[in-house]
C-alpha cells in the first residue's frame, strides 16, 4: 500500500493513505492498522485519512520505525477484510431524552416518527474516536434530517445523548457543553474508565435501535449522570 510519511516530531509519525473522508480510504486505514499492529511498541491512532503512529524514542529510533512501517505498509493489502463489525446502540428517541426532536422534525418538514425511522434506519461508519474519550466520528447520515447546530450551545448535555449538528450525527460519551440538536439518549456508557472499557472502535458500522423509555430505564439501571 502506498503511504506518505509526515514527521510529527521525535516520537510520532503520521502515515497518510488518502486525501478525503470516504469508506474506501477508511478501509485502507484499517488495513494499514492491521499490518502495523504486528510491530510491537507502537500506539496506532487511526484517523480519517491515515494512521498516527506514536512510539518511545528511548526504545526505537526514527530510522528504525520508518523502515518497519514502510515494510509493513508494503505488505498490507487494501482488500482482504473480513465481514464488517456491526454495533447496535439502543436509543430512546424523543420526549424528555430528545428535547430537540420536535424542532428538528419541523425544520426538516418531517414527522418525528419519520426522523426516527430515517436516523435508526441508517448505518454509520465510525472513522475514528477522538475529541473526548469514546466519542465516535461517524459518516453516512441521511441529509434529509440535517439541521444546523444550536446558535447558543447548552452548558450541560447529559452523557449518552444522541444528536445532530449539520450533516453529522454523534453520541456524547460524557457530560459536556455542546450545540448539537438532541434527539435521543442511549443508556449505555460508551466510555467507562473504571471498567477500562470503550464500547466503540474505528471501523465499526454503528446502527441505532429505537427502544422504549421503560427499556431505557431498565438498561440504565441506577446509572444516572
Amino acid at each position, binding site marked *: 500500500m502506498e503511504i506518505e510519511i509526515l*514527521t510529527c*516530531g521525535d*516520537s510520532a509519525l503520521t502515515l497518510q493513505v488518502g486525501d478525503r473522508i470516504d469508506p474506501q480510504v477508511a478501509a485502507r486505514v484499517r488495513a494499514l492498522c492491521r499490518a502495523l499492529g504486528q510491530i510491537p511498541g507502537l*500506539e496506532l491512532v487511526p484517523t*480519517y485519512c491515515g494512521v498516527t503512529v506514536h512510539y518511545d*524514542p528511548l526504545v526505537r529510533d526514527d530510522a528504525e520505525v520508518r523502515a518497519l512501517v514502510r515494510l509493513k505498509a508494503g505488505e498490507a493489502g487494501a482488500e482482504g477484510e473480513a465481514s464488517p463489525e456491526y454495533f447496535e446502540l439502543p436509543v430512546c428517541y424523543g420526549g424528555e431524552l430528545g428535547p430537540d426532536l420536535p424542532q428538528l422534525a419541523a425544520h426538516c418538514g418531517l414527522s418525528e416518527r419519520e426522523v426516527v425511522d430515517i436516523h435508526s434506519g441508517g448505518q454509520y461508519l465510525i472513522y475514528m*474516536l477522538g475529541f*473526548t*474519550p469514546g466519542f465516535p466520528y461517524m459518516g453516512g447520515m441521511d441529509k434529509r434530517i440535517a439541521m444546523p447546530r444550536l446558535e447558543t450551545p447548552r452548558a450541560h448535555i447529559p452523557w449518552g445523548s444522541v444528536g445532530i449538528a449539520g450533516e453529522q450525527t454523534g453520541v456524547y460519551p460524557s457530560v459536556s457543553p455542546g450545540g448539537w440538536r438532541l434527539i435521543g439518549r442511549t443508556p449505555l456508557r460508551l*466510555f467507562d474508565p473504571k471498567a477500562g472499557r470503550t464500547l466503540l472502535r474505528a471501523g465499526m458500522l454503528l446502527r441505532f435501535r429505537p427502544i422504549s423509555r421503560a427499556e431505557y430505564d431498565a438498561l440504565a439501571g441506577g446509572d444516572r449522570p
Partner: protein
Amino acid sequence: MIEIVSKGLLTTVQDMGRRGHQPSGVPVCGAMDWQALAAANILAGNPMDEAALEITGLGPELVFHEANIFAVSGGDFDMSLDGAPIAVGRAYVAPRGARLKIGAARAGFRACLAFCGGLDIPVVLGSRSTCLTAGFGGHEGRPLAAGDRIGFRAPQTWLPALERRAWAYPLAQKARVRAVPGPQDAAFSPEGMATFFSGVYTITAESNRMGYRTAGPEIAYKPGCGPNIISDGIAPGAVQVPNGRPIILMADRQTVGGYTKIATVITADLPVVAQLKPGDSLTFEPAEVAPAQAAYRAAVRRLRSLAFELDAAGPEW
C-alpha cells in the same frame, strides 16, 4: 498520608501519562515537565515514572500525617517545612505532623512534588495521571482541594545517601525551543516558516495543560492553503496554527485535530515549554529528528546515572 490545607493554583496527581488509549480518544495527560517528574522521583528514591503532585504557579500547603521522604524538582519555588526555609532540588525527611508550604516560583512555573514509595491512587487505564478534561484518573479526576487526603503506598524515613540526594534542575535562561518542521509544514510559505523560526512569541493567559496560546508575528500560509485539514493525530509538543499564531499542544491535548501543524517541539525541550507562564516569551529553532532523539536520550541517561549513583551508594566513611 498527606492532607491538603490549601490547594495552590493548580495541583494535580500526574505520572508519565496514559499510553495505549489514544485510539479511544483518551488524552495522554501526565506531567507537563517529564524532567521535573523524573528528577523529583529519583531524589525521593522512586522509579522515574511514579505518580507525584504537579504544582503550578503557586503551590499548595499540606500536612504529613505520616513521616516520609519527599523532594521537589522543576521551577524554583519558595518552600518551607514547619516554617524553616527549604530548597527545591533536594530530598528531605518530613516527620509526622510536619507542615510543607510551597509558595510562588521565583523562576519557572511548574514543579513536581514526589513522595518516597509513591501515592495510594488507583491505576485507571494503566496510569495514575489525572485526566482533567474527561474528569477521571488521579485523585477523583480533579485538581486537589483543601481537605483532600492521599495515602502513601510505602513511606520511608531513610534512603541511601540522604544528604547527597540533590540535583540542580537546569532552568533555561532564555526559552529557545527546538522544533522539527511538520506534519503540515508544506502548507506554509517560506516566509511563514521563516517567521515561525525567527519570531518572538509571548504566552497569553489563555493557556493551560492542553496547550499554550501565543501572541506574536503572524505566520503566512502558501497561497491556496489555510488552517483547516482533515483531522489527524496529534503528537506531544505539536504546534498548531489555526489563526496565524502558534499554539503549542501539551499534556492534556486532544488526540486528533483539524488544524495545520507547522512543527513539533522536541521531547527534550518540552520541559522548557512547561516552565513558561503567561507573559513569558520564546523563540523556536529548527531541529531534525535524529539529533532531537539523541538529545532526549542523553538527558534521560544523565538522570539514570544520577539514580544509579544515589541508590548504589555504599556505606559512607
